[in-house]
Structures are given as structure tokens and as C-alpha cells.
């Protein structure tokens, strides 16, 4: 899978920056990043621009990550975009539920470049 444009969704500017830094260290330095501040903002941008991968938080005002995941997975145009959930609000039970809904992976905060690399390598079909 070829990843050129990555969307980062979190209401915290600091969290978006941490995700971007981890992605860059994990090997995505030359990629395009699109930021969104909640699920609604993300959906608006997803409908205007081709996105290859979405990383999203769960707890956000206006539209939560759960609803964003649902909207992506029911949309014929968006459903094939892999969604990685990055959150403080997940344990084994929540992870199973999110994967059942179509999330590719769930990563607990605090994230690290190693965790992002491992997850994205699996997404791209094996270690880089």
C-alpha cells in the first residue's frame, strides 16, 4: 500500500504535533499531512482531498472518533481508507470493539515512533 497523504485528527494541537513527529521519525518524513480538529472537520476534508491513511483520537468535541470511524466505514468512497485509532480511552475490550467496526489498529497514548512504525509496517504488508 502506497501512503502519500496522512490525516491526523485530534482536538489537541500538541497531540497532533506528537503524532506528526512520530510519523516522521517512523519513516513518513516526505509525506503530506492534513490536520483536522474533530471528526466533522475530518469528514469535510476527506470529502475534498484524497487521503491514504487516517490517524484519529476518540475523545473530541463536536464529533468523536467513534462517529468518524462509523462515517468512514459506511461511505462507499471512504471505506477503504485505513483508520488507526490513537487514544487514551482504550483497553482490550474497546480495542476489540473498534476493530470490529473497521479500525485497522488501536494504539494507546503515549505513542512512540516505534509503535507507529510497527503498525504502519503491518499496514504496508510487512517490515520496511
Amino acid at each position, binding site marked *: 500500500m502506497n501512503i502519500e497523504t496522512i490525516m491526523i485528527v485530534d482536538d489537541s494541537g500538541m497531540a497532533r504535533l506528537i503524532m506528526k513527529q512520530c510519523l516522521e521519525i517512523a519513516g513518513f518524513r516526505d509525506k503530506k499531512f492534513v490536520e483536522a480538529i474533530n471528526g466533522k472537520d475530518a469528514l469535510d476534508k476527506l470529502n475534498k482531498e484524497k487521503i491514504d491513511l487516517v490517524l484519529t483520537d476518540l475523545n473530541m468535541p463536536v464529533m468523536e472518533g467513534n462517529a468518524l470511524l462509523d462515517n468512514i466505514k459506511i461511505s462507499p468512497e471512504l471505506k477503504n481508507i485505513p483508520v488507526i485509532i490513537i487514544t487514551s480511552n482504550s483497553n482490550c475490550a474497546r480495542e476489540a470493539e473498534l476493530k470490529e467496526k473497521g479500525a485497522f489498529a488501536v494504539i494507546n497514548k503515549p505513542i*512512540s515512533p516505534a509503535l507507529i512504525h510497527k503498525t504502519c509496517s503491518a499496514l504496508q504488508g510487512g517490515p520496511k
Partner: protein
Amino acid sequence: MNGNDYKNLLSQAIITTIEDLAFIQLIESEAVRGAGDAAGAGAGEDYLQDMLSVYLPVKSRYGVIIMSASKAILKETARNIFALDPDAPVSEDMVNDTIAELLNTVSGQFMRAITPKDEFYELGLPVIGSFEMNEIGKEAVDCAFETENGDKLFISYAFL
């Protein structure tokens, strides 16, 4: 799980998060109920307080996690994460964002540790304000920390 278990898990969550995210070492100090409140040691414009509500399914109870941190710690954290110079100015928005993200991350680690794996816990959104631990929870766990510069951070968890 008793009060000491909760205290150890909460303490571990904050130490790990601050070290991983900001490369700041915290030293645990003696905790006094309400020390981080507006009326306590965390008083004044140099401190910021943030509260996040939590739901613990195993006890069917709501709770709160409250963090009070010196702005010096929050500014140093922001500078380290944003890769700013040591004396670069840090805006109020960045300081607010920093305490909210720290509290969110710490609360997630703590709740994950105390919730059975087959149950769901819930986190609310962080709210910055002025809170009094003495008025919030009778069943509470309090932790206090200092940096090597003497800057203080307090975190408490209380069942409502």
C-alpha cells in the same frame, strides 16, 4: 485493589508520561490533600489546574482526576515537545493544551490499569478551572511530585 494500589498506579502513570513525552524527571514527594488546590501550595498565577471526569464500570461509579502543575513544568514540557529553545516564549494556549494532553494521557494509563480487560472505561474531556479536592472526594488518592528545580505537580483521583 486498595488505596495504595491506586496511588502507585497513578504515580507510575504520571512519571512515565512526563518522562516519555517531555524528558522531565519527577521525584515523588509527600502528598497532602488539597495541596494542589487554589488555596493550597499550588496557589497563585504560577499554577494551572485541569480536571477530567472518568467512569469506572467495575464499581459503576464516576470519578474525577485532577492535575495541578506549575506553569514552569508545563512550559518546559511544551518546549521539549515542540522542540523550542529553552528560553523561547510559550503561549497561554500552548500551556493549556499541554496540561490537557498530559492529563488525558495519564488518565488513560491509570484507567487502563484499574479496569478489568473485558470492561469499558470512559474518559471525559479535560476542563481547565479551579477545583477543591477537599470538596470533591472523600475516597481520594493524592500524589505530589517535584522536579529537580523544585517545580511542583499534584495529581489526585477521587470517586464522587
